[in-house]
């Protein structure tokens, strides 16, 4: 199952510039401790891995645990070296992968 994502990558950057990347996925991150209106426990349902890669290298990888807030959000930095695509991938606990990507033009 794919989820909606929000990513922010600057469209252009100067070579060597450090740019901020933001990524978020719309996901409830059920922690397994909540109960529904009938009193039955809602099972754990989380995103387990997030990877951002750029220029054939992994920039940022997270192993997520239920202790992260719903709609897990990350902001981090990368150094713009050459024009290319910044790729994002989220893996849910059922192994389904949600991907997103954005081009960055380096001048």
């Amino acid at each position, binding site marked *: 199952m794919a989820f909606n994502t929000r990513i922010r990558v600057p469209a252009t950057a100067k070579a060597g510039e450090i740019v901020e990347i933001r990524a978020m996925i719309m996901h409830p991150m059920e922690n397994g401790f*909540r109960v529904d209106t009938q*009193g039955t426990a809602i099972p754990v349902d989380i995103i387990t891995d997030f990877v951002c890669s750029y220029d054939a290298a992994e920039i940022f990888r997270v192993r997520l645990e239920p202790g992260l*807030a719903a*709609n897990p959000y990350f902001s981090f930095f990368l150094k713009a070296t050459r024009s290319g695509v910044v790729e994002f991938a989220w893996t849910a606990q059922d192994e389904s992968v949600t991907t997103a990507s954005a081009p960055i033009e380096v001048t």
Partner: protein
Amino acid sequence: MSLSRRKAVSSLGATLVAIALRPMRSFAGEVETLAAIRALFGEKPMQTGRVALQLPSLAESGNLVPLTITVDSPMTETDYVRRVCIFANRNPRPWIAAVTLGPKAAKAEFSTNMRLSGTQDVIAIAEMSDASLWTAQANVLVTVGACDSMLMRR
């Protein structure tokens, strides 16, 4: 029923013992946090410093607590932060996340949002490329915890 002094004293004693032996609220405590840390990093010594936690000192809701972690590192191909692990020492599951930075990440800095079940310490441990461990911790006052429905069930 007449209550003799002996009976009264012994029943009071029994009550006190029962209170003392009552199982603790099953919060994951510092013990479990230390076990989780040991499972990830072994017995290696840790030094305090180089890691900075930016957290609100008071969070109204534990459901969404913003967190920024900055590690003092040049982030070059030979000297970089390998990973950063985050723990909350009174959450039911203390381990919050493990972040791995590639050598091409420009700055050892990132932000995210986490859940806190109540007032507690947040601990970050950074493993450098030379395998040394650095740690920092910060206390957060939480008005309404993230797992309140869980606590009511108990």
